[in-house]
């Protein structure tokens, strides 16, 4: 199965299971978790189901296109099910069947792997999912985001798309996987990796990054200081800070002592955004439901039962 069929199949599957099929966030983010469709939507009482692909930037993982397994930018398929349904593991396994993986012929295991993001003040409990020994997904029950205890709890499923494609296609290098038809991933993406690596490790202007980090910090705080606060612009500014930090880090410009402090600056804003978001949703009367006073505590996903979404 080529990469784009993988994406289409997973999108179709989760769309059929009540997810809104969203688009990637149009900012550089380190993971699909940072997309407001995850970071904000998991907050508060409103039920939600969403799926999207998120190109994820990890400048320090870039390898000049030389390492067959490591990328500075890779694709994640992110699924959020809020609240987490009782049959979430079964649904996940069915989604693998949609990729042509027959569970009765393979070994599928869930091994403990908990998740924490100091930048987002978030953590969760869950597993890595192993298919015949290969880690193909992260499976997390979010417990806290933006420093806030979550209720209800969301299940987050993250598929590492290149990894899964490599595995399904039995390729030795990520650059050899077929993206669509016979066209190889490397033909499309290799030069980006070379250039993004060179930029992250050798070229990025550290002083400029540092300056913008402080600029966006101020801008985020300014949006939050407004009455009412501008939540999404404030979060976007914080996400920019997070990416600027990652670039500084890749460039070797973050001392170990400084690291905690810089992450803390982003986290403080993420926490303020989370709090402001919940207040905003409350003011709006929790339009997606779920609030107890509306008598809608059952928390059904917005699109209703399985397969009903359009």
């Amino acid at each position, binding site marked *: 199965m080529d990469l784009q069929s993988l994406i289409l199949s997973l999108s179709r599957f989760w769309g059929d299971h009540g997810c809104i099929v969203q688009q990637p966030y149009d900012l550089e983010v380190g993971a699909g978790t940072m997309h407001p469709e995850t970071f904000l939507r998991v907050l508060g009482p409103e039920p939600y189901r969403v799926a999207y692909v998120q190109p994820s930037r990890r400048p320090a993982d870039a390898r000049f296109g030389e390492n067959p397994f490591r990328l500075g930018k890779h694709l994640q398929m992110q699924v959020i099910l809020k609240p987490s349904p009782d049959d979430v593991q079964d649904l996940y*396994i069915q989604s693998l069947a949609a990729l042509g993986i027959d569970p009765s012929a393979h070994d*599928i295991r869930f091994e403990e792997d908990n998740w924490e993001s100091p930048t987002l003040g978030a953590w969760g409990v869950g597993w890595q999912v192993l298919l015949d*020994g*290969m880690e193909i997904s992260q499976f997390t029950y979010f417990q806290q985001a933006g420093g806030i205890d979550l*209720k209800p709890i969301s299940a987050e499923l993250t598929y590492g798309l290149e990894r899964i494609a*490599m595995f399904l296609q039995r390729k030795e290098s990520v650059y050899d996987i077929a993206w669509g038809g016979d066209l190889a991933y490397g033909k499309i993406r290799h030069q980006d990796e070379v250039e993004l690596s060179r930029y992250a490790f050798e070229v990025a202007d550290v002083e400029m990054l540092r300056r913008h980090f402080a600029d966006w910090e101020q801008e985020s705080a300014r949006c939050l200081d407004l009455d009412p606060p501008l939540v999404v612009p404030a979060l976007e500014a914080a996400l920019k800070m997070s990416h600027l930090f990652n670039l500084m880090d890749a460039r070797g410009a973050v001392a170990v002592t400084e690291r905690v402090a810089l992450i803390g600056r982003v986290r403080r804003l993420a926490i303020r955004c989370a709090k402001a978001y919940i207040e905003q949703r409350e003011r709006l009367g929790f339009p997606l439901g779920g609030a107890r006073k509306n008598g809608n505590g059952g928390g059904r996903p917005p699109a209703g039962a399985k397969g009903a979404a359009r």
Partner: protein
Amino acid sequence: MSGAEFLLELRCEEIPANALPGIREQLSQLFASELADNGFGAPAVTSLSTARRVVVHVAGLPETQADREEEVFGPPVRAAYTSDGSPTPAAIGFAKGQGVSVDALRVAKGPKGEVVAATRQLKGRPTPEVLGEIAARAVQALRFPKAMRWGQGGHSFVRPLHGIVALFGADRLDQVVPLSLFGVDSGSATVGHRVASPGELEINGTKGLSGYVGLLADAGVVIDPAERRRRLEAGAAALAAEVGCTVRPDPGLVAELAELVECPGIVRGDIAERFLALPQEVLVTTLRHHQKCLVLERDAAVAPFFLAVCDRPDDPQGLIRRGNEWVAGARLADAEFFFDHDRKAPLAARREALERVVFHQKLGSFAVKAEKVAALAVELAATRGVKADAAALASACALAKADLVTAMVGEFPELQGIVGGIYARLDGEPEAVWQAVYDQYTPAGLEGALPRGAVGAVLGVADRLDTLAALFGAGEVPSGSKDPFALRRAALAVVRICAEAPLPADLGAAARAAAVVRQGAGDAAEATGAAVAEFLQERVRHYLTAVAGISPEVAEAVIAARWGVIADDVARARALEAVRGEEAFAPLAEAFKRVRNMVAKGGAGRADAKLLTERAERDLLGAVEKVEKDVTKAANRGEHLAGLRALATLAAPLNAFFTDVMVLCDDEKLRAARLALLARVERLFLRLADVSRLSAR
């Protein structure tokens, strides 16, 4: 087994392997204590589990709980009776509430003084009813390394709970015990293995635990972790034998793998020959830590195969083997990439980069640490009896931390030291150097082998002493359960190396030297050195009692006299342990205790032996002069046993001295001379042990 039985199965999403042994243990204990508290005595409790279910079985239960008495505390006596002794409404109300007459109330000692108490007769209830309550309390009392919430977020458990089977019965488990936990009601059906037998599995009517175990086995689930482990071990041995190999022993990993599955299967995969060129340690770590694979060996070398565990008995299309081979190959190719990358420059070329790696916020980089360790190592190596080649030691210190900036250690932090050692070897460093770098982190506390040579021993001790002095100096002192830098383990490793390598350096002096290297001579270094020395002394005490098998009072007697050269401390302790039971030794503790009390009371006196004229004091003086020579001779030969036996000969003259001689006499000069004699005795004893600590009182 006579009597009725109870079976509880909690079905969850995959429970972490590291939580399961604790859950089984807690459930056994919680059930045992609840059953005892509820009048069931001590029936046999068994806890079993897989990754997806936890089971408790109780055998030998009665149909009905035994009748019991229970003492219930009521209001304070003051409030229960009026001054003329008649009961107040409070007492009457309490008695009524407990179903007893007011006359049956007694006075008892409650937690807050005297209260009235009633003995309540408790009629035994049907056992299943009580079991339902016991089970609910036990499950809710479980503690986990990490609990979680799910769904609506109202419940907290190790993983989401999906099903409860709770059955009771005499011949067959045929009676559902009503029970509700986290919104799940108990029933009589479970499910089998996720792939092999996903449908509902009815347990009702099963004959006992063995019937249940059999039903599950038919549904692809091996419920007993010990049985899963046996099967994995047998399966691994058989697959290894097929290719003429043996399994590299790895009991910890096998135990973990057994927790990870419901149905233990195992497949053998091939490793491409080219990866065998990687250092064996890298090969093993990649397969073991990152892929949880068992490694096969042939002729003591890693063979081109691995074993991977899967949660099913078979691999019908060979997909599992091929998948695992692909992943192992990818992991090893990754390691190969790091290895080739690292090998482009010699290890020594990486030292510069250590300036950018912070050791601790207040204490600078690892480049600084490397300098301090080297300075301290030179001092340690100068100790008499230490045979570490100076040039090799200097090289080892210079290279020791360089692997922290290699890609390999970045990827496999657990290989720090080992990677440095391997790269140093490949760079052509002498054996003494690369082995010292390789061994610098072993032993970890009491576990692991010692460094292979004297250079490694000195480096290992210098590195850890520097860490201790640096962090103590920066105020990072372990307290209670907080020891984030694992300093206790580091100190214990220092003690062990000194004792067993052995390294004849005086640890008290070395601790002070380490503080001076970090802080420069002065009050600060003096205080840090003393604190580190005291910390080390505590580990010496632990080492003597926990490892050398010395009794606490003997350890105390040895350390109180003097400590620091650990091998000597251990030898003195062993000797003292051996002689303390001897008849001649028995009176010595009391006699020496009197010596110490007297010296402490009287202060130091001027020694003027000419003034000592009484027979008992002349005799003691003569005996002391002789024993001093004997002890010195014995010490030079390292014969502490002989030294201690020589000390024992002083018991008689000391007792005669205390009987016949008035030490604290009025003649000041004479008193001083007698005290000086006793101080001499004290010094003589303290060369070996403060035997007063063995005194019965």
